[in-house]
């Protein structure tokens, strides 16, 4: 079966999945506008100081609204991060031969955004906490090597999605997830880099069709 035929199924499923995620979250916000403070969306605008033109209660007498909001926000962010990571992991399964699929790596990929989102929420804008975190990570001294160089991209993607979720920017995390998934799908379908003897690449690289010398 040709790749172009094989790609239509994952493309449809993944697109439907993203559409479903966006529809459900938009629908929830439309039905329950009070959910808005708990949704980890728009965090980057706030970090840039371009927040809304309205007051927002952070803490009310008798208890910390902020803490409740943060806990719920973190819960939603973590769930959102995992939901956005799922298509990325599917890409890993699609583009990797079955015998090379590493179950442990796939599970790590899914869990990584949860941890990164949690860390980002803890650190927030505290330089001291960020340095403490760096110290702790240095002390743990990970000795972890990836089997395939391409796996690094999945790890980076997981970190990016986790960071996006952690700084209340699930919108950006969604774009990252979609960009990665569709980009990888296109490159995999095209088998990009496998055929360099086409007239275009021969012209581009100034090598003739049989020239293997780099």
């Amino acid at each position, binding site marked *: 079966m040709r790749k172009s035929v094989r790609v239509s199924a994952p493309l449809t499923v993944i697109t439907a999945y993203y559409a479903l995620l966006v529809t459900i979250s938009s629908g929830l916000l439309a039905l329950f506008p009070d959910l808005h403070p708990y949704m980890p969306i728009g965090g980057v605008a*706030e*970090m840039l*100081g*371009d*927040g*809304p*033109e*309205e*007051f*927002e*209660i*952070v*803490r*009310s*007498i*008798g208890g910390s609204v*902020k803490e409740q909001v943060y806990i719920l926000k973190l819960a939603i962010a973590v769930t959102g991060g995992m939901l956005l990571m799922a298509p990325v992991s599917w890409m890993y399964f699609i583009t990797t031969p079955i015998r090379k699929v590493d179950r442990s790596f796939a599970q790590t990929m899914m869990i990584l955004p949860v941890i990164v989102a949690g860390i980002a929420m803890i650190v927030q*804008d505290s330089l001291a906490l960020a340095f403490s975190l760096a110290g702790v990570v240095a002390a743990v001294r990970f000795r972890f090597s990836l089997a395939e160089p391409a796996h690094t991209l999945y790890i980076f993607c997981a970190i990016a999605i986790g960071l996006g979720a952690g700084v209340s920017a699930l919108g950006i995390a969604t774009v990252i997830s979609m960009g990665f998934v569709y980009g990888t799908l296109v490159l995999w379908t095209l088998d990009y880099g496998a055929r360099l003897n086409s007239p275009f690449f021969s012209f581009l690289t100034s090598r003739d069709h049989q020239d293997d010398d780099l």
Partner: protein
Amino acid sequence: MTTSRLVSLIQLVLLVGGLPVFQACAEASESFSVGGFNYDETRFSQWKLPKSLREISGLALDTRQRLFAHNDEQAIISQVDYREGRRVKKFTLGDPAIRGDFEGIAVANDTFYLIDSAGALYAAPEGEDSSSVSYRLTRTGLGERCEIEGLEYESAADSLLVLCKSPRQKALKGYVTVFRWSLETNALDDGKTIQLDRNALKDSMGSREFHPSGITVVPGSGHLLIIAARERALLELSADGELIAAMELPTAKHHRQAEGIALTAEGDLLLADEGGGKRGRLSVYTAE
């Protein structure tokens, strides 16, 4: 002892020992007293301010207990309802709003005063919502003595209290200084300047460092409350400059950069924190 019994024992210890600890943690709250009022972290609320008040720099209450705030970089005055969390109105001094490094606001006899760090004093009437008003500028010359950081109206002396942050004159170094600007003579009342030797702070705060950022008058007693953003500390002085209390705010964790302070007639303490790149905050400590 079998492993399962050991595990059960540990679970029991955790259950019995853990509950009171969690309860204690949940109930722990910071409290402090200042200006004759008691405050508790459980009676504390905080607002994130609109982006246009990101650079909030000063607070002032008028005789009707309406709260006004101003921006650091532009002469924009906002009336804020701190109970409901909304802006009632805003108006500007000049059209477009004049630019400067505004450090304090005061309301006296229906006139609004803004002061900049160089000691330029702007006086203007109250404006309608979204309006601009004309202003009168007085160069106090206080900027040559020190960098100005706060303003408040003292009705007992019909004076503006002008707070000095960084002294530029040798004679002012080592002191917390508050000038009195008489509204009657429109001149400095030099004989009534308050100076507190910073060494007096060592006993209470363990340090003589104190960089004032806001000032207010306690209704009734006439005492002065001075907040320091950098040290997140609070001073209470008598009207004569005698030190009543000095403390680091026990609730310092809630304050990024407290630039404005006001105290309502009911004793509610209001603190405004500049955003520092994020949204500013308005904290309300309700008096017991």
